[in-house]
């Protein structure tokens, strides 16, 4: 099992989490995810996730003109997005705890 497979399930959560602190545009979000340690995340995955979260009504967008280069489309969490982030975060924590204890038990047994 590699990180790519794990990411599939939690990329939503990761993107929402990255946007909790600060709004961001596509490439910026990707960069933040990578800086946070998710090195294997791909541009298409982030872009696709943003599109899906936006379509699900969890994000709002606004365009910021740039002096140098193209305009940037910023994504921001809305209320539904924050709500989702909270619920998904809880789910993940409990899931992670379960996995941790499972692995610890296995480790002790082995």
């Amino acid at each position: 099992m590699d990180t790519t497979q794990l990411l599939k399930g939690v990329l939503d959560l990761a993107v929402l989490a990255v946007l909790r602190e600060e709004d961001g545009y596509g490439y910026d979000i990707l960069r933040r995810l990578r800086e946070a340690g998710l090195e294997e995340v791909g541009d298409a995955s982030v872009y696709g996730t943003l599109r899906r979260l936006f379509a699900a009504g969890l994000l709002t967008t606004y365009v910021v003109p740039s002096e140098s280069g193209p305009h940037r489309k910023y994504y921001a969490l809305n209320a539904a997005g924050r709500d989702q982030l909270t619920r998904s975060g809880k789910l993940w924590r409990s899931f992670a705890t379960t996995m941790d204890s499972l692995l610890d038990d296995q480790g002790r047994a082995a």
Partner: protein
Amino acid sequence: MTVTEQEITDYVARVRAALADLPAAQRDELTEDLPDHLAEVAAEAEGTLIERLGEPETYAAELRAAAGAPAGGRNLDQRVASAVVRARRRLRVLDTRLGPPLGYETASDFLRLLRPGWWVLRGYLAAMLVTVLSTGGSFGLLPRFGGELLAGLIMLIGFLLVSIWIGRRSPRLSRWPRWALHAGSLVLVVFALASLIQAEDRMRYGDYGYDPISVDDPYERVRDVFVYDSEGRLVENARLFDQNGDPIRLGYPDCADLADAYGGKPVLRAYPYCPDQAPFGPRAPGAPVPTVESVPDPTGLPQADPNPGPTSTPTSTPPATPTGTPTAAPNPTATR
């Protein structure tokens, strides 16, 4: 910024093509922001989009998975497209690997140098194809138009110029003309290979391109000549000459018994060599005619003449052979 608008447009088009199986609305929703997004990506770092993001087809697959779109079995177009992408990648690897042994960076660098040569060859092959079609069947190395060498050479020059002209223009051709050009080239290559194999066969069996036309002497099978006069009588001691007075020599005396009479020089002998082998007997309207009438041997050369006008001179002809001919000769005159 190293990425051009055109590059982004192309990239988006290929991503959209890879998502072609999705409902139009969903596909539009997924890709409507893509040009802007790619422009952002392009603004962030150096290098082409493909270097940074991978092939558009891969990008589309990742996008499809991330957006939760029905990953649904890839349709035939996409499978073909990805196979083409893989094949291209392999070719590129092969290209760079084969280059150094040839003394070039890539093999295609070397092949590109050969292109004008191919244009010339293509013109020649086209001319030869027309040669085969117009002449039908056998052909040599030079083009002919309907069997005419001069017309063929003019055609060759024309085809060479056209082929070179097309070759210089081909990068700018649009899609269909280019396909037509490729198809035509393929036909020529197949034609060239077929001709080569055929020529190889002919060379090995030694007859190069010539139909078996008989150049034998048409009189080869003539062994003797029998001359008949208007009355159907066999003319003895006849001689044949051409318009220059040169004797026409045909056949060869088979009857060895008389050869010595001419000092062993058969050339001097008059026709027929062997009168007793005459194919037709004399006409015998009334009288019982001896069938073996040609016994008189042409012993005396000077006496050859009397024979044609022989009605009343039976005895003069044959000093030694008096038998049948005399009786045969008077008969026709009697009936007339």
